[in-house]
């Protein structure tokens, strides 16, 4: 099992795909090294534009480029990018410009830089914009496929990526499909119902798989669904889980409100009858190691396992 940051997979895929489509241009706000757009910038300097520390203008300029037939990819830390919500709201979402917003360093998983750098409300904000596709891939393979899909798709997309390395969770034959949640762990036995279906996304998927494996060895049956697509969200997978699981659990490196847990509750409310446990961050972030922060804020495999079987 290899481990790689999804921002790195993105950067590699972007540089490769840039060769196939001359319409692709990349815009940066002084973070090209961190967002990993640098390989593209080096390979295609005439299609790379450095905007300095001025994200709103970068977003607006991307909209203008898109309106003239380019495929702009805008990168920054997720918090600085989606923090310019008003520019994204009008220049990207309302205008339906073909702008790809790529936010790296999402969540508390970034570790020691601390709260100001940790986007924990970006999924909620982006999900609330009509027509915005919101994606958060879980591993290297999925990121590459999501980037390829994003660049071919005509419409605004927000792609949320991790700074920290994440383990591979997909088999080699995996095919990314927008709007679909896919099982990354299915228990061998289930009788008569699963204890839980866990909905995880991005940096928490590996933790959720580890939790489910551990639970299986203790005799519990828990399925893990990877939710790379937060908008559109796979309501069908939720309905199926409501039918065959005793509870639904969401786990995300994001505020517990408005993100994956929010999407899950919205979809589950259409079915009803199954309790939902949301694991998410309940405060601003703080400095520490990724693993320490996931442990402290309740996103580690141990916390996920506990949430799957604790008495409700």
């Amino acid at each position: 099992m290899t481990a790689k940051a999804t921002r790195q997979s993105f950067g590699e895929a972007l540089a490769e795909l840039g060769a196939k489509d001359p319409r692709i241009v990349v815009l940066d706000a002084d973070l090209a090294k961190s967002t990993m757009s640098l390989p593209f910038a080096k390979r295609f300097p005439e299609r790379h534009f450095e905007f300095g520390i001025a994200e709103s203008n970068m977003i607006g300029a991307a909209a203008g480029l898109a309106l003239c037939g380019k495929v702009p990819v805008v990168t920054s830390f997720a918090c600085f990018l989606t923090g310019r919500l008003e520019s994204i709201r009008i220049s990207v979402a309302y205008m339906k410009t073909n702008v790809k917003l790529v936010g790296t360093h999402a969540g508390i998983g970034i570790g020691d830089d601390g709260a100001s750098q940790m986007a924990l409300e970006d999924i909620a904000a982006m999900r609330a914009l009509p027509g915005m596709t919101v994606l958060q891939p879980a591993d290297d393979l999925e990121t590459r496929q999501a980037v390829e899909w994003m660049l071919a798709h005509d419409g605004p997309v927000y792609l949320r990526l991790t700074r920290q390395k994440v383990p591979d969770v997909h088999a080699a034959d995996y095919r990314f499909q927008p709007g679909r949640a896919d099982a990354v762990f299915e228990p061998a036995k289930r009788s008569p119902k699963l204890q839980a279906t866990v909905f995880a996304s991005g940096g928490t998927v590996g933790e959720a798989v580890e939790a489910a494996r551990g639970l299986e060895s203790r005799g519990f049956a828990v399925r893990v669904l990877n939710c790379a697509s937060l908008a559109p969200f796979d309501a069908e997978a939720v309905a199926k889980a409501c039918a065959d699981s005793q509870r639904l659990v969401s786990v995300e490196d994001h505020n517990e409100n408005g993100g994956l847990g929010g999407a899950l509750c919205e979809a589950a409310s259409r079915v009803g009858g199954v309790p939902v446990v949301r694991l998410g961050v309940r405060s601003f972030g703080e400095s520490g190691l990724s693993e320490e922060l996931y442990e402290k804020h309740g996103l580690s495999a141990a916390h996920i396992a506990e949430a799957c079987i604790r008495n409700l």
Partner: protein
Amino acid sequence: MTETRISDADVELRSASRELRSDIIRMIAKAGSGHPGGSLSAIDILAALYLKVLRHRPAEPLWPERDRLVLSKGHACPALYAVMARCGYFPRQQLDTLRVLGSPLQGHPDRLRLAGIEASTGSLGQGLSIALGMALAARMDRSERRVFCVLGDGEMQEGQVWEAAMAAPKFALENLTAVVDMNGGQIDGPTREVMDIEPLAEKFRAFRWEAREVDGHDFKALLPALQAPGSKGRPVAVLAKTVKGKGVSFMEGGIDWHGKAPTAEEAARALRELEGGKS
């Protein structure tokens, strides 16, 4: 453009502009809401651009080689709609549907509802960035197309405008022209009192733009300022001094006409003035 041709254009534009002002008054009165002050101050700028400067094909609004115009001060869209109708983008009687449910003539411009609108605006401060992106695309395409952005002077208070102002000379966008409709008023009062933006020409020059200060109601000054693109990598800022509510005596200079529709009686009075040619 030669001296004689400018005088011909001047005569033609002055006449067009009186009719466009009447259209603005009629449409806002009919809608019962809208922004007459900034529409009347900007109409001469938009008339000069649409009728004399822009290379565009109203019958083919998506012609790729057209010049682009972004109306960043989106609340002045009655002026834009009036001049677009005159150019033939849509039938003039459609002006009566301003702000009506289902109309392509939204309260602020919407590119997805009306062909010919280049950018949806109405949240101030974003237009110059969009125009900058369009100018960058033109340069990448090695195209001659130019991009114009019409902003309000109050709008210059938005920080994003200055982010764009900083970026345009970096990218050497000579094909980008910002036109500031300097009518001196905004909702809460005179711009110099709400948040003074002066000295604006000095600010643009400090940001390495070419600044051209003109009377925004004098076509003889306005036309050459809009026609010449920048040089030496400098984008152009045309600072057009205008009068809010220009052309209607009781609206001129009045802050309270920023976003208020005239009553039927006020509209009739305004139209009598405009049709009497007093502007």
